[in-house]
């Protein structure tokens, strides 16, 4: 059994030693902040733990009463594929807004989430 453990360990050590960082894209941070209160946001900025594919990553916004709020095309930052930015094309009225996101990381794993923020009067 010890020999078995040695073989397993060596195999894993050799197989994994030179790999790079790829994983599910988990939401690390958002602006407006998750659960936060802001005055007049001009964009939704989502910072993920990994790079995302903007073509397959969706962000949508619903306002008070559940009405859809149009957003501009979401893009990643030029130098940081883990940051996705969706412009808010019209000023938001005061109220509670819900962000829905569905991300596909660069290694094709899917994640999703929802959070709210408040626009103060």
């Amino acid at each position, binding site marked *: *059994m*010890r*020999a*078995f*453990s*040695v073989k*397993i*360990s*060596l195999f*894993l*050590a*050799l*197989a*994994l*030693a030179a*790999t*790079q*960082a*790829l*994983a*599910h894209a*988990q*939401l*690390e*941070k*958002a602006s407006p*902040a*998750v*659960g*936060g209160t802001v005055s007049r946001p001009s964009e939704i900025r989502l910072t993920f*733990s*990994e790079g995302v594919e903007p073509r397959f990553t969706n962000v949508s916004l619903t306002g008070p009463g559940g009405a859809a709020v149009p957003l501009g095309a979401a893009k990643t930052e030029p130098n940081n594929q883990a940051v996705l930015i969706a412009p808010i094309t019209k000023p938001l009225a005061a109220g509670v807004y819900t962000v829905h996101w569905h991300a596909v990381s660069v*290694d094709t*794993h*899917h*994640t*999703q*989430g*929802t*959070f*709210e923020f408040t626009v103060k009067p």
Partner: protein
Amino acid sequence: MPTLKIRSAGALLSAAVALWLTPAYPHAVCGARTFPATIAIDDPGVLDELTLPTVSYVPFNSDGAHEWDASFSWTKTITPGLSVVIGSGPTWEHPGGYGWNALDTELQWQALCIPDAEFMMKFGFDISWAGTGTGTFEGTGGQNTYSPLVVAGLGFGTLPQSLKYLRPFAITAEFSTSTPGQDWTNGNPNVSTFNWGFTLQYSLPYFNSQVAAIDNDFLKRLIPIAEFAFQTPIHNGAAAGVTQTGYFQPGVIYEADKWQFALEAMIPMTGATGHGAGVVGSLDFYLDDIPNRIDEPIFPHGFGIAPGI
């Protein structure tokens, strides 16, 4: 033999170092919910993962002995919803001695994931192989032990907005039976058990990404957890003088980018379990994000037999 021990320790260390340097996120993911790996019972996901090691100490086990256990478990996906698990490890008892436990293999099937409900479930079939133990376990188990099992997990993310602070909660549960291949061996009864357990967990990573931002980088990676795991004899228990055993394991899981670490107390729940609080810790690595072909299903598109297979 000391040389072998050194080699083994070196190999384990090199594997651990390699994994430490390999970022990965724990992700028995269903919808917005990530179920972390848990110690007392299994998590409800089927994925490539490595638990290396799990180490536990109980001051007085059911035989009144001090007990140390170490184990590993490696899960390899065959198709996206089907995996094989290999696990084993040594036990030290004083008084009692040392030995490797029997080799366990398990086939797992991810039967269900309902993303909007944050609900997932898997079925498994575990075999503990006779004749693979060593030392104090060499003579035990003249027959295989078979354990069909089911594991399920449910996140509370569907609760209404008025209860948003309860949304990070999740429960998982596992039920199985363990049945030896023979009722009796050399005149001694072999006991079949019903194994059941559940966890209640509160995910601060979920809180941070779904409810309210947490500024503290350490805090937002913690998952306080309480685990319960019991073994109830269902056949030959009386003949063997075996009664229900079980532990309550409160603790916390730290979910890093590359690994997770769980630390829990082990509190005996019945007199037959032992006495005195023990402790268990576990390092877990999620391999399915690592792009090197041992991380992906062997048949990534499955066979079209059933969902995930």
